[in-house]
């Protein structure tokens, strides 16, 4: 059997799976991210799912760690305190102070720290053995976090600009010719109210989903090739696929950190926009 025929059979297999048939290679898809752990209701999809559980556990573990590590702080840090201070410094100074500005940043530090630690831990959970689930690959959770950021920066902006109307007015930069104002207003309004939250949530969700899906393809595909492959070449490709999945895992680690960083950074950026007196 030549490789082309094999790939053709994969395709047909995938098609068959999608149609609810049997046999062939079960292509990993979004359905693989549906993990109801504790169903609440037998008829509907109301359930405590695996990502929700991971999210809850991560929040509790993070909370416990940070609270216990900051219980006994000393000017000369211990090992745990060093870790806490390292992450805190990063969020406080690199993300918070440098972007929002030293005047207003302090009140947003808890928010940024929560976002960053929660995202980092949940993203890295995607490759932590036995957990191996990136929580953000379920769109609901990025949407929640984005909503929090969205509400925060609009509230801050409305408060800073003393009302909704002045806020809308401030969207258009001053000193523009009259005919340009409506166009720019529409553009800016879309940016602030639609594009920013949409991209913020979808970037995180898409990265985590795609990254994990890729790992799934390489691992599940490798397994399939190794176990079901009809000749040595296919089985060797399966081993190669496993090896590549290990490489991709390290790549994922980078992506996971970057996404947590970018999300927090953009949140800070949006807040800094809201805090600034001018547009």
């Amino acid at each position, binding site marked *: 059997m030549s490789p082309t025929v094999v790939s053709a059979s994969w395709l047909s297999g995938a098609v068959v799976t999608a149609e609810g048939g049997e046999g062939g290679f079960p292509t990993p898809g*979004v*359905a693989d*991210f*549906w993990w*109801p752990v504790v169903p*609440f209701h037998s008829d*509907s*999809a*109301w*359930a*405590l*799912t695996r*990502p*929700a*559980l991971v*999210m*809850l556990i*991560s*929040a*509790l573990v*993070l*909370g416990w760690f*940070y*609270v216990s590590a*900051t*219980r006994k*702080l000393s*000017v000369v840090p211990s090992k745990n305190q060093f870790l*806490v*201070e390292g992450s*805190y410094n990063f969020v*406080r100074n690199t993300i918070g102070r440098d972007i929002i500005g030293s005047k207003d940043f*302090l009140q947003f*530090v*808890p*928010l940024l*720290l*929560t976002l960053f*630690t*929660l995202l980092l831990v949940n993203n890295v959970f995607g490759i932590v053995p036995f957990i191996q689930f990136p*929580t953000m690959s*379920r*769109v*609901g*959770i990025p*949407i*929640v*976090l984005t909503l*929090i950021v969205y509400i925060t920066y609009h509230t801050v902006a409305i408060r800073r600009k003393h009302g909704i109307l002045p806020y809308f007015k401030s969207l258009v930069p001053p000193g523009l010719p009259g005919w340009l104002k409506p166009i720019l207003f529409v553009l800016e309004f879309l940016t602030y109210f639609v594009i920013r939250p949409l991209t913020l949530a979808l970037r995180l969700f898409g990265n985590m989903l795609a990254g994990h899906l890729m790992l799934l393809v390489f691992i599940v595909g490798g397994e399939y090739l190794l176990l079901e492959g009809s000749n040595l070449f296919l089985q060797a490709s399966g081993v190669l696929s496993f090896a590549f999945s290990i490489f991709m895992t390290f790549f994922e680690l980078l992506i996971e950190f970057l996404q947590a960083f970018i999300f927090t950074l953009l949140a800070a950026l949006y807040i800094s926009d809201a805090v600034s007196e001018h547009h």
Partner: protein
Amino acid sequence: MFNASVATADGVGYPSGFPLLPHPAEMIIGLISFAILYWLFKTKVVPRLEELYTERAAAIEGGMEQAEQAQAEARAALEQYTAQLAEARAEANGIREAAREQGAQIVAEMRSRAQAEAARITESAKRQVEAERQQAVVSLRQEVGTLSTALASKIVGESLEDEVRQKGIVDRFLAELEAGEVTPEKVTPAGTDA
């Protein structure tokens, strides 16, 4: 709306129909998780860390103050040392001057002592010479007596010898000479020649 959307899910899995549809339970739990963590961070972690930061800043400032104080102290000590050094140098100069004076004094003293010694030696030498001269005078006196007697005998005759012995003419003459009754000019050239 949530219930309706949830109800559309079938057995295969919630997202099979709409992969981008958020699952409400996940959203709620995500919100709860975030709220818990945010609350903990806001009420406990961040205030504690901020307190530490101010404490550390204070410690650093305190350290700088301390360093400044130490520097001032060091400067004061340096000034003191310089003053002491100048003092010590002046003192050393004084001591050197005194030593020089003392040395000169000692030299002078030694010189005077040496002079005294020299004088003493000269004196004793003179005395010795005097004694020797005395002795010479005494022996000369005898010799002059003898010689003059012999000379006189040769001039006057041999008999004079006994007569001279009998009368002690020479002794008497010499005694007179010493007593100053006879002028020494007559005798001394003979004495000094001897």
